[in-house]
C-alpha cells in the first residue's frame, strides 16, 4: 500500500483510524451476536420451549435451553 500524502496521514490519524476500525468491528459483532441470542430466546419462549435449563445436563433430552 502507498503511504498517505495528506495531513490526515499523521500518526494521530492512524491511531484514530485503528480505534475506529476496531471499535466499529467489535460493536457490529457484539450487536449481531446479541441479536442472534435474543431472537432465539424470544422465539423459544413464544414456542414454549424456554427455561428448560436442566435438559442440557441430561435431565430431559427433549429440549435444551439457550444462553
Amino acid at each position, binding site marked *: 500500500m502507498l*503511504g*498517505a500524502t495528506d495531513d490526515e496521514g499523521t500518526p494521530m490519524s*492512524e491511531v484514530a483510524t485503528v480505534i475506529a476500525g476496531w471499535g466499529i*468491528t467489535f460493536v457490529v459483532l457484539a450487536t449481531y451476536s446479541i441479536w442472534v441470542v435474543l431472537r*432465539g430466546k424470544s422465539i423459544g419462549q413464544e414456542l414454549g420451549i424456554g427455561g428448560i435449563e436442566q435438559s442440557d445436563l441430561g435431565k430431559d433430552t427433549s429440549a435444551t435451553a439457550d444462553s
Partner: protein
Amino acid sequence: MTAAAKSGAKMTATPITRVLGVSALAATAVMAVLGLVVSPPDVVQGEAVRMLYLHVPSIWIAYGGFALTSISSILFLWRSGRRADQGRHYDRLAGAAAEVGVVFTAITLITGMLWGKVTWGTYWQWDARLTTTVLLFVTYLGYLALRRLPAEPTVRSRRAAVMALISFINVPIVHFSVDWWRTLHQKASLSVGRRPEITGEMYWTLLYSALAVTVLATWLIIHRYRVIRLEELRDEEGLEALIASRLNKDVGSH
C-alpha cells in the same frame, strides 16, 4: 406444551456451544491484545497496519461462509428429494452461513475504507477489488432478501440455492482481482505457494486473528442455524393455528 416443544425442538444453546461462545469471547480478547499492543507498527504504514488483523481475516471468513452456503445449496438441490426433512437442514445451514458471511463482508468493507483513508488518502476508489467486493456484499444481501420472500418453503429454498451458486461465482473474482487487473489494492498478504508478505509477530498475529474469528463465526453460524429452525417451527405453528381456527369457524357456521 406446544407442538414445537413436543417435537423435541431445541433453543439456541447447548453446553458445547456455550463453551464455544466463551472460547470465542476469550479468543477475540486475546486477538485485541495481540493486534493492538503486542504486534509492532509497520515501517511504512505505522499504526495503520493494525487494521490488517481485522480486514484480512474478515474476508477469509466471508469467503468460507459463502463457500459453506454453496456446498449446502448443492447438497440441498442434490439430496432434498431423498431426505425425510426435504433438505431443510442444508437450507438452514446455507442461510446461516450466508448471513454470517454478509456480516464479515460488511466488516471487510468498513475496515478497508478506514484503512484506505490513511494509506491511500481516500475512503473509496472504484478499482477492481473494491468494486467486486461491494458487488459480493450486495449480491448476498439479495440472496438473504430472496430467502425472506413469501413462497412455499421448498420452492423458496430451491430458488435461494440456485442464487447462492450464481452468487459464488464472484468469490474467486474478488480474490484474484488484484492479480488479474491493475488495482490500488495490494496483493494478498498470504497466499498458498507464495512467500508471505509479512513475517514475525505480524505474521503470527494475523494467523491467530484468523483462528479467533473462525471460532466466533462457527459459534454464530451454529446459533443462527438453530434460530432459523425455531423461526420455521413458529411459522408452522402459526399456520396450524390458523387452519384450526378456520376449521372451527367453518364448523360453527354450519
